[in-house]
């Protein structure tokens, strides 16, 4: 059972509530209207404080397009008629706890906007790698000093000489593998269950199970973590795990969630020479507090959670629209969140 009802022929299509950050909410609503003129859209307030009017809107809604941080503290009894919630972003960890704790109420499916963010996150990862391998910062430094020095750049590694270990091999991980392969990078993928030969992707050179994490870490010049935030990924890289990166002084890139590794682990791993550098896009607390030692550590690159935050409206709402049509026809929805797994 998908938990939603088939549309009766006499029914008007249910209204879709949009609860999202202000400017984006308007763009999203307008884009939905443009692509699906018959869709009825209710723009709910995008603030964290809901007015009485907002609550009235929510009360009747059967469909809600939203983002987890805005509904995380929402009492689900405010959504008594909800039949389907779609998260317009990829990471749903903030709402999973709410759903689990209010199990008796939350019998509706939750879907998420997976696949939309894949390519831009892969772009970010390759951009980071290229920027380091081709020493763009040093090139700029030389230009500032008007130094023409070819010799110093002669010995770069072509990407065909390096390996990347991808931890978290969902749709984002697969896209990173595809783009990495475009440049001839050797790809290791960490998976929970090793795929059969028929299921294997041609862009992965070697699959590794969780037990083989050490292998993956010691073989990769770059480690990209796209692990979701779930209880099983808390502190995934903490302790001595990153010491296995020592062989290649792996560069650690985190674009998943900040729970996977603590600040002190990152700093220790850098100071002990386990990892060569850390590129962090996600943190336990965001924005990263000014007093965090990560800001001043030379071995750390900080990016403000931007590996996948650009909205191209028509593409952004594609999964939502596909699912809306499926919902109306009583078909199964795409990218359903498994509340027990947490993604």
């Amino acid at each position, binding site marked *: 059972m998908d938990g939603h009802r088939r549309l009766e022929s006499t029914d008007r299509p249910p209204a879709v509530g949009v609860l999202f950050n202000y400017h984006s909410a308007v763009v999203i609503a307008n884009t939905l209207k443009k692509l699906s003129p018959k869709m009825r859209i209710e723009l709910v307030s995008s603030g964290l404080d809901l007015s009485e009017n907002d609550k009235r809107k929510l009360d009747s809604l059967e469909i809600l397009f939203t983002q987890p941080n805005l509904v995380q503290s929402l009492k689900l009894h405010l959504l008594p008629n909800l039949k389907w919630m779609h998260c317009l972003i990829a990471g749903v960890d903030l709402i999973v706890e709410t759903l689990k704790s209010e199990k008796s109420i939350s019998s509706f499916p939750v879907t998420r906007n997976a696949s939309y963010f894949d390519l831009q996150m892969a*772009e970010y990862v390759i951009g980071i790698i290229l*920027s380091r391998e081709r020493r763009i910062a040093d090139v700029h430094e030389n230009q500032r000093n008007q130094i023409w020095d070819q010799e110093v750049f002669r010995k770069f590694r*072509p990407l065909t000489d390096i390996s990347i270990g991808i931890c978290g091999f969902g749709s984002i991980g697969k896209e990173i593998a595809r783009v990495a392969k475009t440049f001839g990078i050797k790809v290791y993928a960490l998976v929970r269950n090793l795929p059969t030969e028929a299921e294997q992707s041609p862009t992965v050179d070697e699959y590794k199970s969780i037990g083989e994490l050490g292998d993956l870490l010691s073989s990769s010049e770059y480690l990209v973590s796209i692990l979701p935030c779930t209880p099983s990924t808390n502190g995934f890289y903490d302790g001595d795990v990153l010491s296995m990166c020592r062989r290649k002084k792996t560069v650690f890139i985190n674009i998943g969630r900040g729970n996977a590794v603590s600040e002190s682990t990152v700093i220790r791993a850098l100071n002990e020479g386990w990892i060569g550098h850390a590129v962090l896009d996600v943190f336990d607390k965001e924005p990263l507090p000014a007093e965090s030692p990560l800001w001043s550590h030379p071995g*750390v690159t900080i990016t403000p959670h931007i590996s996948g935050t650009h909205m191209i409206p028509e593409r952004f709402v594609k999964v939502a629209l596909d699912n809306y049509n499926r919902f109306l026809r009583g078909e199964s929805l795409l990218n359903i969140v498994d509340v027990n797994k947490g993604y």
Partner: protein
Amino acid sequence: MIRCVQTEIIKRLFGGKSVNRSTTLKMLSVDPSSSVGASMRKEEGTRPLVGILATFVGSPLEREIADAVQKTRPDIRFEVFVRGKPTISEKEMEDLKSCEILIADPNIILENNLVNNLPNLKWMHCLWAGVDRFTRSFSPSGPYPSYLLTRNGDFFCIQMAEYVFGYIIDKERHITEMKKLKEQSLWKRLPYRTLSELTLGIVGFGDIGKEIARVAKAFQMNVWALVKSFPKDDEQCQHVDEYRLSSDLPELLAASDYVVSILPSVPSTDGFFDGDMLSHCSPKLTTFMNIGRGNVVKDETIIAALDRGWIGGAVLDVFSVEPLPDDSPLWTHPKVIVTPHIAGLCISGSKIAGDFVQNYDRFVKGETLPYTVDWDKGY
């Protein structure tokens, strides 16, 4: 007719799974020098004397190449090893002149007046992709050397693509700016565009251009290519959305968020982008990238185009004069990135050795060699 050459790189690109190496050779045109070369080649069974003229002082590269060839193919008479800088001694000159095959940087040959002074030479192989200084040193109608000249046409392709996309993504995703923000402990999200929303115009569509198109398509970019003549249906590159002829350059410039010039240096490309040509870039404030040769655009043209708001930025790896003179305004213009001719620089001695050995075997059999320079075309 140009046919695609499958290389080692393709094998690596498909996850290490083995792909049959195509033995199709690249034929640029009917090459008069190759038929001359073929007629002068020894019959199978004889062993031509091979030498290498090292380019960079202190660089171990040529030694790596020589060692790799000698080790894997002791049957090859690889007996001459000369350092081209700072000077070549009398004895070394004689050694070079005795070579029938020479691996060399043609510029060093030029500098030492050896162009027409290598009486035994049948085939010179250049380690680099561009041989324009050498080819432009001859008068347009010849006479040309009697030996073959081949160049390293495909080794650099993927590296050039790395360079191009490294700078494009660095710019679009503000990677350099974010370093500066970190220095100030500033958490600030800068809006960005994805490559999938952008158009790349490739001017000069040889193997390097095709490789760049392939990678552009992996990022879902819209790709335009400027060509000398429209390819026939079965020759069209699957990664190109729009082909345009040289006369349509203005249209290509207007459509492109990024333009990459990979044009070789030949008389017809001199000043290709000079004058008002770059004014056509204003609709999208195109970023102009040059990884071909510096003859296509003057320093002053770039500066003027930036200051007039024709182009939004310039990423330049090649220049009319290299090293770029100290007084060039390009060094200090805030919208210009100067890189010291490093887009395709890394060379693997063992890979070059492997390629050379393959060509050597073709040579002694009298077969056509890939990337044989057509003296008339200049590349």
